[in-house]
């Protein structure tokens, strides 16, 4: 007769412990197990959140410990929502978010579709393609500043060579019109492989039999693509969009290294702006209100999106 694992675990429990636990209900034991995690979450997630909300109604500055913080009501929120400069950073973030997601989904899906067609060396190409996402964003930002350098940068040289223009005649990170695209290009270069991998997982999860059935029904490749591939990969694509959306909403390191938020405020995304308010200008109360607004925005949008994602998955 074989002994079940649970019986083996029970027999291994020391008598002293067994006696103490015997008097506890299953529910109590369950609480005993989850309590440390809940306490940890309360301490490092929930308490700071509540504290941030509390600070957002004050003019507290963390660099001025000797000064009393006053309650200012909704003044911080009012200032943020009526500040034109904040809306400029919101627009910069929206531009970055929209174009990176569009480009990464289009290129990532295309690459996944091509890689999925098994060919000689496809594994090697997959490895090569995913290399950029394995690098540190700070490193990527730093070396792209060299690629974008007007006098010696490879990017400018290639553009100049292909278009016949002077490579030192334009500066990707120094010109207002080009800088927003400079950060989009780098983020797309770095994170398209991530979207590609998710799409690849989606494509490989489609059973071959569905395509065989479609072949029997004499469905064209085009029709198979639109009626089988896209609907079945859509939940994966939506997941990739969610991940990239959340990641890029809080994008910081890459852009700081690349442009520092400039020229002017052209590429100052909300996370960079928030960091400057909180840890450079030390406007803790104001920055707390700013963080609360961003949190509500991301949480709200993500919730709506997850609901939509679930609906797609149920179909």
């Amino acid at each position, binding site marked *: 007769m074989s002994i079940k694992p649970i019986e083996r675990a029970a027999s291994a429990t020391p008598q002293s412990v067994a006696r103490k636990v015997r008097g506890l209900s299953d529910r109590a034991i369950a609480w005993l197990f989850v309590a440390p995690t809940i306490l940890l979450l309360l301490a490092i997630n929930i308490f700071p959140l509540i504290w941030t909300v509390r600070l957002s109604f004050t003019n507290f500055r963390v660099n001025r410990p000797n000064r009393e913080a006053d309650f200012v009501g909704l003044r911080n929120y009012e200032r943020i929502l009526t500040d034109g400069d904040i809306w400029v950073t919101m627009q910069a973030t929206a531009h970055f978010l929209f174009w990176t997601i569009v480009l990464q989904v289009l290129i990532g899906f295309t690459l996944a579709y091509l890689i999925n067609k098994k060919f000689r060396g496809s594994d090697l190409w997959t490895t090569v393609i995913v290399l950029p996402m394995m690098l540190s964003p700070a490193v990527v930002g730093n070396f792209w500043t060299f690629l974008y350098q007007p*006098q010696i940068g490879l990017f400018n040289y290639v553009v100049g060579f292909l278009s016949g223009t002077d490579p030192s005649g334009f500066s990707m990170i120094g010109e207002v019109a080009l800088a927003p695209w400079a950060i989009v290009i780098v983020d797309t270069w770095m994170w398209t492989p991530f979207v590609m991998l998710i799409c690849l997982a989606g494509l490989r999860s489609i059973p071959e039999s569905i395509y065989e059935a479609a072949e029997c029904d004499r469905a064209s490749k085009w029709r198979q693509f639109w009626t089988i591939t896209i609907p079945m990969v859509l939940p994966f694509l939506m997941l990739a969009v969610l991940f990239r959306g959340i990641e890029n909403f809080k994008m910081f390191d890459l852009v700081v290294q690349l442009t520092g938020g400039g020229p*002017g405020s052209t590429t100052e995304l909300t996370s960079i702006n928030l960091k400057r308010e909180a840890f450079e200008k030390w406007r803790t109360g104001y920055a707390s209100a700013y963080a609360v607004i961003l949190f509500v925005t991301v949480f709200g949008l993500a919730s709506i999106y997850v609901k939509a994602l679930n609906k797609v998955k149920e179909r």
Partner: protein
Amino acid sequence: MKHSILNSAAIAGLAIGAGLASSASAQADELTLCWAAWDPANALVELSKDFEKQSGHTMKFEFVPWPNFADRMLNELNSGGQLCDLMIGDSQWIGGSAESGHYVKLNDFFEQEGITMDDFIPATVTGYAEWPKGTPNYWALPAFGDVVGWTYRKDWFEKPEIQEAFKEEYGRDLKAPETLEELKDIAAFFQGREIDGRKVYGAAIYTERGSEGITMGVTNALYNYGFQYDNPDKPYELDGFVNSEGAVKGLEFYKELYDCCTPPGSSDWYMSENIDAYKSGQVALQMNFAFIWPGVEADPNVGGGKSGYFANPKGPGGHFAQLGGQGISVVAYSDKQDAALEYIKWFAQPEVQQKWWESGGYSALKAVVEDPGFASSQPYAQTFLDSMAIVKDFWAEPAYASLLLAMQDRVHDYVIAGNGTAQEALDALVEDWTEIFEDEGKY
């Protein structure tokens, strides 16, 4: 009898206590000195070896690159951290650090040790040590005098064909400029010119956005066109001073200089980028703090007489230069304050200050800089003296960080991004600063 026993016990106790105290003060400590990571810091490491020998204390150093220096160190001070026993903090931190209790007040110590601020260059005392400004309350010892000045390619200036071409174009000899307009002419002259088979550019100027770069650069134009931080007769009255007609012209000048005469891609340059551009032969002129001059002189490409130095040229509204430099303070959270004060006492000695200058540090001690041989001791020594005589500093208020970042944003937005007009940028700056001072309860 009972009293005498008690007295004896008390005396014995005091003696033991005193013995313990003296043995504690004689104990060798490990002191940590925090500063920016740059050439002068390396010179200080070498210099401090003498202190280690004399005192028995050991020195540790925490150096942070300039772009992150303020972030890192102000975080440390604000959190009451004990990483640093000695801090060579930026001049603008003095107000906040004094009011927040980060630095130890040094008046009693100075008096006790016979250190007097009259022995130091007045501008450095005001800039690095005093808070509130203009009052004899000292929180630091002037440690490193620094000021924005200019470096130029003397070897290019001396080329006959260049001199001839310049004279033909501008009708005057090519030499170190005396006014900002002359400086712009020279930069424009060199922009895109071919020298020794290479295309070169006019000037490397401060344009950095993230920390303090463009502010440290643009003020050299603003001051000399008439910009003032506030009404001299009514503190914190900004309108008409920050955005005066002269200030607007100064800001326009800086933008014109950026547009006409800087290398492509120089939209976010500060000290190190300017040094690189100059040493690699990209530019004829370089704006930078004086601390780089010893490095320029020693450089195989541009040193050894190939470079010249001049103070920030005057403008129609005056003759000033942006003050840099720092004072050395004892951190209030340190539990080795006695040893830290010992270091300051050692550092203030004239012979140590002399050695400091010789090893590449800019002493602020009058005995060193007023020595008859000082001006000729290095090719840049006279320029340093001329520049220190015309310095002006940014706000050193406790809210300096907010004031600085507001200026960074407004100036960068106009000069580099080309948004709006100079008048609009300075008007917006007045609004930002007014809001900050309102929060500070100044009105």
